[in-house]
């Protein structure tokens, strides 16, 4: 295909830039080669618009719906997720949080807090050193926080992807 034809097709299809569009329309008016080619391609374009869609048989929709009736109903992704799984996961996290809370409450030295002379000095480093947790509890809480962070990050990532795909 020659360059002129390609340019004129792009012009007809509206695929060229505004500048190109102006340049080609100028050529169509003033250049007899372009003018002739344009007329030829416009006639073809009109022919292509005469193309018709074929018609299937009268019973087409009926036949399709008959086959569709035998299929199981398609469900949206929301409906496909079993709610029991979601509730199960939620229950696990609630139980984990409760365990963390119980351990933390259990490890607090209540007597020490009552004996603290006034005024109370909120020194975070001092407070940190006063909270005494066993190594196993510390590891458990640490992993708990890590788990929470990972899940939160995954939820944000999922939200971001959904927004991007929408």
């Amino acid at each position, binding site marked *: *295909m020659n360059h002129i*034809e*390609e340019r004129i*097709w792009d012009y007809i299809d509206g*695929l060229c830039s505004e500048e190109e569009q102006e340049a080609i329309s100028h050529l169509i008016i003033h250049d007899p080669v372009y003018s002739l080619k344009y*007329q*030829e391609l416009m*006639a*073809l374009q009109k*022919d*292509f*618009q*005469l*193309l*018709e*869609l*074929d*018609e*299937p*048989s009268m019973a*087409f*929709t009926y*036949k*399709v*719906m008959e*086959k*569709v*009736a035998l*299929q199981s*109903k*398609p*469900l*949206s*992704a929301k*409906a*496909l997720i079993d709610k029991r799984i979601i509730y199960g996961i939620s229950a696990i996290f609630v139980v984990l949080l409760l365990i963390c809370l119980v351990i933390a409450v259990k490890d607090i030295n209540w007597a020490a807090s009552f004996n603290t002379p006034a005024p109370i000095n909120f020194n975070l480093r001092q407070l940190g050193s006063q909270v005494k947790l066993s190594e196993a509890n510390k590891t458990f809480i640490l992993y708990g926080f890590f788990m929470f962070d990972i899940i939160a990050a995954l939820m944000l990532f999922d939200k971001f992807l959904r927004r991007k*795909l*929408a």
Partner: protein
Amino acid sequence: MLSMLHKSSDIEIIDAVLGGNQAAYADLVKRHQRYVFTLAMRFTKSREDAEEVAQDTFVKAYRSLSSYQRSAKFSTWLYTIVYHTSMTHLRKKKVNTTSIDDDANFVQLESYQSDADQYAVEKKSRSFYVNKAIKNLLPDDATIITLFYQGEQSLEEIAKAMGMEANTVKVKLHRARQRLKIQLENLLQGEVKELL
């Protein structure tokens, strides 16, 4: 309910179907059946096979409706299903299909010859010749023209559906038009030059 859905968009009908209203799918079928059937005809070159492919396409589309990504047109998504269903059908029937540039191997199947009788009345019309000429094209050429002119798909949408670059589709469209022009000229046996 159905008459109300008739005026709804594709997405609204899809939501209704996914919500459990199976009957709403009939509206979607009615809306796209001619387009799907025409595309199937481009590949199979036979009404019977095209009807079978088109039906299978709609059943497959129904089954995978929940996986339809709403970023693309429903008709673009349907095209990918028509294409794969047609290829599977042709493979099963062991019909030899040819590549886009393999004109020498292209054989027009006989089923199309009967069209001449069917459309005897409009035999002389321009529309008749154009519609006949496209049927003489290679499946890929005919498909790209159908998607662009009858499916009203943009080059980007066709590229997405065919898994190609938009520029490649543009070149293929140019070539397909060129070949359709030649077919039309052959059919009109010189008359076309006078008409153009």
